[in-house]
């Protein structure tokens, strides 16, 4: 690998890190800069709408996962448990509460501002309701609920669309106007949505690049970095589009030169297994987990976790001509808002479209929204695709539930089995 290649590959990563760090800096200075702050969740978020009111979003799950990656989540979780939170419940919630109880210092070491508004977008996760009920007791600020209907029948009905749009018009926008002191600027929102759609186009191209052999990306471990800008505070901004242009250029370079993705262990060019992944990563053990798979020559060619903010491969784009309606459709389209049968369909398509050798379900204790039903998903996928799956368990941010040795053993056995099933083996 020459120096030029190395620099080129790291550009988007550097950009992404600078963007995230800049956002946390802005948050730390929000009060002195007179910026209002909205706490809200990642899946199907209303980033463009928040930005259109010149407000700054805080995503509690991002703080939790960042705390996990920085090995701080274990202490935070135990802190929350001291306050009576059960060991049984979602560790993201406990990590957030523990962080708050310990001074609300964000993952970059800078303090996080208190919310001026809690925007409870209840999308794909019942625990979100509870989480913000808890936060509401901690903060003296208004709360507004956007209920996002579940796609139980595998589609968005006109009634569902109408429900979300009406809530946006009649509940959410007035709340944002009140807290921000600004009138809703529909034209500004439209401009942002046009930029969102551009970024979404680019991201879909990045995901589809994994159809190449070798895959130029790792759509799971690498993918979680790719989704940072679009699923958090940047969708709708020009820098978000710039980031995906840079990323796309790097990916194109790798395709042209038949290079694999950059991993912490170096470039993964010798790709022995192409795997589709269902479920979030274990953040405190992210590097260890990635290494276990890299050592086996595994590249993740598609994943569902990277669709947790929203799916774009099905054609959805934010639409400036239908601003609130398309925001509503976005909210309803995030991965965990899809029914179990639809999730099986999505995974089946990934396995086929990305020529996968198999699939891995990483089942995490914290998230019933993801995890309940995954064993049935596994059976269905094996039945439909004839590909074998592997089921491993740990947690999002609770380090007590990650057993590297068990996971390694299970994965090694799994890949041996894949090997024996290969034609000509």
């Amino acid at each position: 690998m020459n120096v030029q290649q190395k620099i080129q590959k790291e550009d988007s990563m550097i950009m992404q890190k600078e963007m995230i760090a800049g956002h946390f800096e802005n948050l730390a200075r929000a009060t002195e800069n007179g910026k209002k702050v909205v706490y809200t969740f990642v899946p199907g978020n209303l980033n463009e709408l928040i930005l259109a009111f010149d407000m700054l979003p805080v995503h509690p799950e991002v703080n939790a996962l960042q705390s996990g990656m920085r090995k701080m989540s274990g202490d935070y979780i135990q802190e929350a448990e001291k306050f009576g939170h059960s060991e049984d419940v979602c560790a993201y919630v406990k990590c957030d509460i523990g962080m708050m109880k310990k001074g609300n210092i964000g993952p970059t070491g800078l303090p996080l501002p208190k919310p001026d508004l809690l925007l409870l977008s209840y999308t794909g996760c019942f625990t979100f309701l509870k989480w913000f009920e808890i936060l509401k007791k901690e903060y003296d600020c208004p709360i507004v609920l956007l209920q996002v209907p579940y796609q139980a029948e595998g589609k968005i009905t006109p009634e569902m669309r109408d429900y979300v749009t009406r809530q946006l018009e009649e509940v959410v926008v007035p709340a944002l106007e009140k807290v921000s002191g600004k009138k809703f600027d529909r034209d500004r929102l439209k401009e942002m949505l046009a930029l969102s759609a551009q970024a979404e186009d680019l991201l879909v191209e990045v995901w589809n690049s994994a159809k190449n052999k070798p895959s130029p990306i790792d759509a799971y471990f690498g993918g979680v970095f790719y989704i940072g800008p679009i699923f958090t505070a940047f969708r709708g901004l020009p820098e978000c589009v710039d980031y995906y242009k840079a990323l796309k250029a790097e990916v194109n370079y790798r395709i042209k030169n038949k290079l694999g993705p950059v991993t912490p262990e170096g470039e993964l060019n010798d790709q022995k297994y192409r795997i589709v992944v269902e479920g979030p990563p274990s953040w405190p053990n992210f590097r260890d987990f990635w290494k276990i798979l890299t050592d086996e020559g595994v590249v993740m060619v598609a994943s569902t976790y990277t669709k947790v903010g929203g799916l774009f491969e099905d054609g959805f784009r934010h639409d400036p001509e239908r601003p609130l309606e398309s925001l509503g459709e976005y909210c309803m389209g995030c991965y965990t808002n899809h029914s179990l049968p639809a999730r099986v369909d999505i995974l089946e398509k990934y396995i086929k479209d990305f020529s996968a050798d198999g699939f891995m379900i990483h089942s995490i204790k914290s998230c019933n929204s993801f995890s309940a039903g995954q064993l049935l998903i596994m059976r269905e996928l094996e039945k439909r695709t004839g590909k074998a799956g592997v089921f491993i368990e740990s947690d999002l941010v609770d380090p007590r539930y990650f057993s590297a040795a068990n996971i390694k053993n299970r994965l090694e056995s799994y890949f041996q089995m894949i090997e024996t099933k290969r034609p000509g083996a």
Partner: protein
Amino acid sequence: MKVETIIKRCEDLYDDLDFNYVKDWKEKNKAGAIGFMPVYAPRELIHAAGMLPVGIMGGGDNLEIIRGDAYFQSYICRIPRSTIELGVSGRLDFLDGMLFPAICDVIRNLSGMWQIMFEGKYIKYLDMPQNFGAEGRRFYLTELAGMAKAFEKISGNKITPEALNHSFGLYNENRHLITELYDLRSQMPHKVKTAELFLLMRASNILEVGEHTKMLRDYITAISNSERPERDHVRVVVTGTFCEQPPLTLVKALENSGCFIVDDDWVLGNRYQLEPIAIGDKPIEALADAYLGETVATASRYVPGPGKGDYLVRQVRERKAEGVIFAAPSFCDPALLDRPMIQEVLARENIPYTAFKYAENTGQIQVIKEQTGTFADSIKLWGSQ
């Protein structure tokens, strides 16, 4: 009728995991049956279509899980696995449809599993509104209208306003008697044993509403005329049991440990609305308004403003309870995430509490009994205020 006779009937219904009563009812009435999971489902709509609403609350402690465990990880509560067990063992084949009300992500995903595993049946994830304003009402009306249409198709009966109003009348009467029974227990907890009340509530999941109402009336009459010794127990409210049910042995153990349970939240769907459903010319709207209006507070229902825990405090005050027992199923996110918030309110109100977890097949009753017994003793010794 004797109390023992009524309770024996309830026990038989409780123990019958083949739902023979429902099968016989279907045969006799040549009609369908729709199952529903906790916490709340609009039973009146099913009834108005001439069908039997059947509350499915898992398999309890009498069901051996053979295949159900293969569908769920160890960290997921027990009710979905025993419900799947009931399904895959054919015990729920008699159901013409199944409703999965929005209560948590596990039950929500179970609705999708049911779609995959029991193709061809009517399966409905009931997306209950958490927005209790005009937007939520509008959405819920479309949900109810959709279900009404489906029930008409399954049953072959038109759900007329008259039929729906008639059902409201029957269920209002049933709720009224349940309230009467709960009041009676609070007044005379030594007479109305909680284990009996629990069985009577469980019977409401199975019996046709008119039959259940008669059963309640018979019990109230019989128990009012009975003689049972007074006991030196403390008065407690049990909370957290709204979905996966505690086993009967646990309910008995709580009472035997020195606690009079004077209010609870099990089988909550049969008394969810605090007011009767209005009978009139717009019954579907009345049904929606009854859900959106004055109801019990429970963890699956969003609390949009301040007031979390107020309902429980009111229960404690009105029932003159001396303490609260948090009994939450293991791995129940709604109950367990609610608990610290509510405990904080109780602490502020100087209401003592204790907490434990259970599963519907909990066998380690003795430990819990010792805990609640100690809790009762501490209240007796030091009082509740």
